């Protein structure tokens, strides 16, 4: 079992919704907004330097609140079309911090999704040839192999 330390409450819901916008379902590929993605992300966030982690978590809260201006509700309660519009605005914003924040958010979602073995199969990537090489970090290995149930 893996219990999330950082991605809970509104942050969890914001990331789940953002992940579905960043990597939507396509053919065999499932959408990224699942607890499995969250587990890998949360573990990676735990490894961040404290100051960077604070910035990242604050940015997620900003995404959550700014939803009001794009669909009248918190980000995760908005229509997906409004969520996408908000993310596009952040990505192209003249304010550097929004562009940096969006890049970080997108990168961590892609990390949480495309480093997992179930995703590898869907994209026809067969991963390491030395499959059972001992991991430097057993938790991240188990999260990527979906061997740990994730709780927020």
């Amino acid at each position, binding site marked *: 079992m893996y219990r999330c330390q950082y991605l809970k409450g509104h942050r969890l819901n914001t990331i789940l919704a953002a992940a579905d916008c960043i990597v939507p*379902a*396509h053919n065999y590929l499932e959408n990224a907004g699942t607890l499995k993605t969250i587990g890998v992300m949360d573990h*990676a966030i735990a490894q961040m330097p404290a100051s960077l982690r604070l910035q990242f978590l604050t940015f997620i809260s900003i995404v959550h609140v700014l939803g009001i201006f794009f669909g009248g509700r918190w980000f995760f309660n908005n229509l997906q079309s409004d969520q*996408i519009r908000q993310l596009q605005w952040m990505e192209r914003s003249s304010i550097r911090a929004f*562009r940096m924040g969006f890049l970080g958010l997108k990168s961590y979602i892609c990390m949480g999704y495309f*480093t997992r073995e179930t995703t590898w199969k869907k994209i026809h*990537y067969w991963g390491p040839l030395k499959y059972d090489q001992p991991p*430097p970090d057993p938790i991240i290995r188990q999260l990527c192999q979906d061997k740990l149930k994730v709780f927020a």
Partner: protein
Amino acid sequence: MSGQTEGFRMKKQYDIVIVGSGAGGGTVARALIPLAKKGLKIAILEQGPHYPHSYFTQREIEMMRLFRYNGAWPVQSGEITIAAGQGVGGSTLMYTGVSFRLPRIVLDQWQIPGLTFDDLTTRFEQIEQEIHVILPSDKMVNDNNHLFQKGCQNLGWPVKRIPLNIKQCEQVGFCNLGCDSGSKQGTLEVQIPEAVSAGIDLIPNCDVCRISEKKINATLKKAPQGTIEGPWKPGEIIIDASIIVLAAGSPCTPGLLLKSGFQETLPWIGRDITLHPAMTLYGVYPKPIINYRGFPKTFYTDKFTDSHHYYIETAFYYPFVATRHLGIWGKGLSETMSVYNQLMTVLVLNHDTIMPQNRITLNRKGEIQVNYQLSKEIISSLCHAQIQSARIFFAAGCERVIMPCASPQVIYRNKGDLKTLEKRIHPKNFIPITTPVSSAHPQGGCAMGEQTHRSVTNAWGQVHGYPWLYVADASLFPKSAHVNPYLTIMALADRVGEHIVNTVINL
């Protein structure tokens, strides 16, 4: 070596200490073997861990720790992220083994008195033998590389083989995550083991905080689990050394000099930096190809190096990193990644020029900060490179391409004519930070030269005014090397080693 404990600080004494174990540090260490054999005490201090082959698990999320900042060290503007290795072997730990010689035309532009083409050529020949530089055979060319060759040939462009330093390569394709077979002949495999066998001490996990007159202040960290432990216990340490060689790489070597206060006498520290801004570009082939297995890099074209200042090389990366390069999200990302085994990839490498505003400084916390802004010329060059890369992809048979500076970013084959490409791929679509640009070749910051106020070291890497202090890494480059820099770093480091040997012998 003699050692003692003073309070909580350990003290050590050496004749020569090398800071860094990458292409520069490893090569200097090897060049100093004659002195070690004469009984001089020499140590290599490496900030990162000493990884055994068994550590390399071929999984990108687990191997991100081989890189500083997980492979994405952002410059201050956020416009570029730098990938640099952190561990014994430095960036040769996770490079692809590309071993170009410095082009003569570039050396002429450098204008370093005493640094001649003949001198470098002799060293290149010797080092190429030592690190086993070869031209890849046809057997090493996978589909992704074949398609690049085909695309260039169909366009009538020159396509050349990339010199690589590998030996009995298993061609598994994980070069950038650490070579678990030891085939890649970086300093972890060649120079460092030779130096250690000759009696040179290797100290991993040693973070050098400051240097002063023949003295080094450092902190030893605990070895991460699964890595090879060093000989000393964790804690603070002061090392006395008659000669100090800085080979921590650019930007860390100039950063260390700034942290140590040398800028008061050497105002050029941190200046004249270049980064080789790079973009990794993708095309989608109509059917599955062998792309992520096999050797990732075997061909390049220099068609546009003189006219537009870039090379195009073959490359291939793992799924998560690929999403960072693609620069797209939403439906386009899912569509592209769902055919990961159909992706064809190239790497565009711009050779940038030095600009006064681009320099290494320290931030308010005293941390190293790389100040770099992409100029209009570089953005224009990178857009030109995207247009030409799209042509290669289509000429190779790709059905669509993804170009970060195109609007929209996905371009289909039927709209792939040159006029359409030029219209759609345009500098106005470049958004700083959002458009993915990376660097794996930071250079400069301790430029060689004659004048103290316009350079940091002489042509032998000896710091002006400090005869006991040397620099032996890419920081020495006064301008971009144009090509992948590792062989040039090794040749310059070999010169530094030779100068130290001659100086010590003549004392």
